[in-house]
Every structure is written in structure tokens, then in C-alpha cells.
């Protein structure tokens, strides 16, 4: 069943637990075929939002439509068409890899004969065919994640929800997961994901919203957000003394540059980082280290909220 409008739409969506407001009146739309991201630090309200979209948590107020239906009344029919990759793996550790996928397909009412072929295809897709009869426990973190992704695809969902899909994985395992998600995107599968990794958001998302304290602070494509809020490049300076930090921040600010002073370094935003560095060195500055890089969503987040995405 295809629907023409947005796959998810939210208006003033809120979620409150006792006196804690987890999601504070957010608006967004997820369009067919796109990868839509929620970027924000831990506790920003991303997972609560995902649970509402996944119809396992009721909205406190506001309006939510998933696949054109109301989660309050049609939860089971919506869930039948979703694939969910939760933040914490909840694979069935008492079952083998292949049984995990088969029983999950049965939860969706699929017949055993349909599942036999589909499970084999999915294992192939996530490169776990040779582990089909293994127990889940001995699998690596990356393999478990891939198995969870395969499980989320067992009902051929119209929409996949991925909550922090690569948190806790080593770089190689992350790349394998990203490859699979990119392949799904190529096949036109709509994905909604949360992440606090800016590289993940930049790599995967067509469009994203930046969340902080339960609110959406901005939205757009990664490139548009970077262009809107920061310059093309960033100069990261480490100076030997804190007093020098303050001095350089003051000088740069008065020269019209946007700056951020972090505990261990100073960021100066510039369209041409190398030119700025050359200028600073000519002025007689002796930094401990200098690093010029392209601006990222991390910088966007820093400027929008005054905080870093990952708390150091």
C-alpha cells in the first residue's frame, strides 16, 4: 500500500513523563523515499519521538500521523508496516540467528513458506549467511546490529525507524551498517534515524532536524544547515595559555569572525581557513597546533545551542 502524502507528520507533538517534558511541541514531516534524521545530544528527545512514531508510546499532546493513520487508534496496523531498529538490541538470545528472523516474521503473521526464502535473502543482505545457525550471544556488536536491521526488514516495511543505529560500534562495523542503510536508501526505502554523530547524519540524511531539550532548533539538508549557520571552513587553534585564547577570540570577533571557545581549543569560522592561518602567523601568533577543516553539523549544533553534540 503506497500513500502519496508524507509518511510521518507531526504538529505540536509533545511527550511528557510526570513533570519531565521529553518532547516539547515539535513539527516535522517525513517524505516518501527520503532518509530523515533527528540530530541531537543524548536526552534531546530523539528516542521519545521515535517511540511515538513507532506506536509504542502515546503522544501527550499534539497531532501525529504515521503512514496516514492515527497511532492512538491504529497502532497495530501501523506497526505491521514499520521496521524498527531499537537503540538497545533486543534480539532473542535464546534463539539462533535464523530463528530470530523467522519468529519475528511470525509476529507479523507471515507464513513459514514465505519466511524461508525471505530470511535467507535477508541474511545474505546483512552478510550473516554463514552464521545462520549460530546463537546470538557470540556475535559481535556489529553483527548483532546487522541482524537487528535484517529483522526490521522481515515484514518489507514501508518505513524503517533506526534509533542510534551505530552507537557503540567500532569504525569498521559502522561502515558496514552505513553501507547497508545506503543500499536500502537506493532501493527507495524511507528511513527515519536518530543520531548524535554528525558524520552519520551528514553521510546518510537527506534532511534532518536538529533537536535540543525536546525542541527542534532548525531543519534542512546537511549542506543547507551548514551553509545557513557556519562558514565553509573552521580553523581550530590550540594556544599555550588561556589568556591567549581570550585575546585571539576578542581580536577575531572584532574582525567579524564567528568564534567558539572550548575548554581545550578555539574555533574560528572562516571561508578560507588557510588564508586566515597565514594571516595569524604573520601577525606573530605561535599556536601549539593549527588545524583547518571543513565545517560540519557539529559546528551547526555548537552555534545553535552553544554546546557540543557529544559531551566530553
Amino acid at each position, binding site marked *: 500500500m503506497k500513500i502519496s502524502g508524507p509518511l510521518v507528520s507531526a504538529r505540536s507533538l509533545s511527550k511528557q513523563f510526570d513533570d519531565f517534558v521529553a518532547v516539547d511541541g515539535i513539527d516535522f514531516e517525513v517524505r516518501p523515499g527520503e532518509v530523515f534524521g533527528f540530530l541531537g545530544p543524548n536526552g534531546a528527545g530523539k528516542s521519545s519521538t521515535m517511540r511515538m512514531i*513507532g506506536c*509504542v*508510546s*502515546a503522544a501527550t499532546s499534539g497531532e501525529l500521523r504515521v503512514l496516514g493513520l492515527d497511532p492512538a487508534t491504529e*497502532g*497495530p*496496523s501501523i*506497526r*505491521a508496516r*514499520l521496521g*524498527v531498529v*531499537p537503540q*538497545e*538490541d*533486543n*534480539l*532473542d*538470545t*535464546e*534463539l539462533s540467528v535464523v*530463528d530470530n528472523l*523467522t*519468529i*519475528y516474521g*511470525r*509476529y*507479523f*503473521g507471515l507464513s513459514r513458506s514465505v519466511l524461508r526464502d525471505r530470511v535467507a535473502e535477508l541474511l545474505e543482505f546483512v552478510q550473516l549467511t554463514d552464521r545462520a545457525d549460530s546463537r546470538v550471544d557470540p556475535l559481535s556488536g556489529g553483527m548483532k546490529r546487522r541482524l537487528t536491521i535484517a*529483522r526490521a526488514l522481515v*515484514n518489507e516495511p514501508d518505513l524503517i525507524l533506526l534509533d542510534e543505529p551505530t552507537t557503540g560500534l567500532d569504525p569498521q562495523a559502522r561502515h558496514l551498517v552505513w553501507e547497508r542503510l545506503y543500499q536500502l536508501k537506493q532501493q527507495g526505502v524511507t528511513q527515519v534515524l536518530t543520531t548524535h554523530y554528525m558524520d552519520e547524519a551528514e553521510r546518510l540524511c537527506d534532511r534532518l532536524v536538529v533537536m535540543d531539550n525536546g525542541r527542534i532548533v532548525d531543519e534542512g539538508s546537511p549542506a543547507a544547515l551548514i551553509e545557513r549557520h557556519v562558514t565553509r571552513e573552521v580553523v581550530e587553534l590550540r594556544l599555550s595559555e588561556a589568556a591567549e585564547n581570550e585575546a585571539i577570540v576578542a581580536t577575531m570577533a572584532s574582525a567579524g569572525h564567528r568564534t567558539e571557545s572550548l575548554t581545550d581549543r578555539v574555533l574560528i569560522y572562516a571561508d578560507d581557513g588557510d588564508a586566515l592561518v597565514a594571516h595569524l602567523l604573520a601577525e606573530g601568533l605561535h599556536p601549539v597546533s593549527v588545524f583547518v577543516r571543513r565545517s560540519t553539523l557539529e559546528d551547526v549544533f555548537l552555534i545553535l545551542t552553544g554546546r557540543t553534540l557529544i559531551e566530553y
Partner: protein
Amino acid sequence: MATDAVMRVVEREVLIYRRLWRGVVFSQFVSPSLYLLAMGVGLGGLISAAGNTVDGLSYLEFVAPGLMAATALQTATGESMWPVLAGFKWMGFYHGMAASPMRPTDVYVGNLVWIAIRLTASSLAFLIVATLLGAILSPWAVLAIPAAVLCAVSVAALLSAFSATQETDHSFPLVMRFLTLPMFLFSATFFPLSQLPAALRPLAWLSPLWHGVELCRDATTGTLSAGGWAAVAGHVGVLMAYTAIGFVWGSRAFTRRLAT
């Protein structure tokens, strides 16, 4: 609640059980044999040698139906505490189910249905051992199986609801010590209620196990107790009421846990 969704919860258990069934089948004959040999043959032999009977029955005939209901209750207690919390916390497989079209109530009921199936098998094993030891007086004894299962399910319905409200397993040993064990000992399992001080008897009437034991004893002896059919209806009614309370509580507790 949807029947096919409930059966998928059972299907998961069957899938796990497939690998374990040999051990479980064997162990299902072990505990009834041990209990019946110790209490029925050992202790019972002593009582019979002194020329005593209990309510006109040999001690083995008296204690066998009590033990049948009581061991079913023990199994149900274990199955509705740790495994339930594992589903929510330690392994989280209930959360996986909750993301599918299943409803939390389906998950709760599915687990109960599976416990009922397990209990049916273990009660049958008990009955076979008891028959071999000569503890069974009547073919009506087959009805002791549904009686023991209903009794144990009523407790499982309440306890699995309780388990769904827990964050840790700290309270489970307390439940075993202060609820299951006294119930096990003082529900006319090992001696008639008339042995209890009159003031304590009403407490036994609250015990689901007492109702289960009475029903089982009626069945294995083929004789209705003083209350006749009205008493039978009363026992069944109480056990069904406990089950119904458990269902309402469990349905809410599972929903709160899986969908908030």
C-alpha cells in the same frame, strides 16, 4: 487480544523448547517421584503402619492430589517471575514483540497460555507417577489435570502481572518465602484444614492452592467433599475470579511497561 498473536508468543516458546525438551520431559517425572516417594510412601508408610488414615484415606492417597496441585503452583510461580522480568529487562524480547502488530495484552496472555501448556504436561506426568504408586482411586482423576492447571494459572496470572511492575528481581525471593511457601504448606496439601486453629482457616480459604487441592482431591478419590457440587462450583469460581483479576492487572501492567 488477538488469538493468532497470542499463539505466536507460544510459538516462540515452542521454538526454544525444541532444543530443551528431552531434559524437561525427564525432569517433569523427577520432582513428582521424589515428592510422592518421600511424603506418600516414606512418611505415609509410617502413618499407615500406626493404623491411621486421613479423612478415610491412606496418607499416600490423601497427599498425592495435594502435591499435584502444589507442584503445579511451584512451577507456575517460577515461570511467571524471572522469565517475565527477563522479557522486559534482561533480554528485552517483549519489547521486540511490542514493535510488531502484537498488543501488550497478547504478550501477557500468550505467556499465560504457554504456562498452561507446560502445566498440563507436568500435571499429566504427576498423575502417571501417582497412578503407578497406587495413589489414585478413581478414573475421575483425569479431571485433576485441569483443576491443577486452573489453580496454577490463577497464580501465574497474578504473579506475572506483579512481575511486570518490578524493576529488579529483589522482591521475587520474598514472594516465594512469604506467599508461595506458606500456601504450599498450609493449603490442606499435607494435612486437612481441620488441623489448623479455627482462626487461621479463613486464611486458607483465600489461598488459590486450597481451592485447587480440594478439586484435585475430589477427582483423584472420585468422591465429592462435604460441600458437594456447590463446593466444586465455588472452588472453580474463586480460581476463575483470581485469574480474571490477574488478567485485568496484567493487561494494564504489560501495557504500561511496553507502551508508554
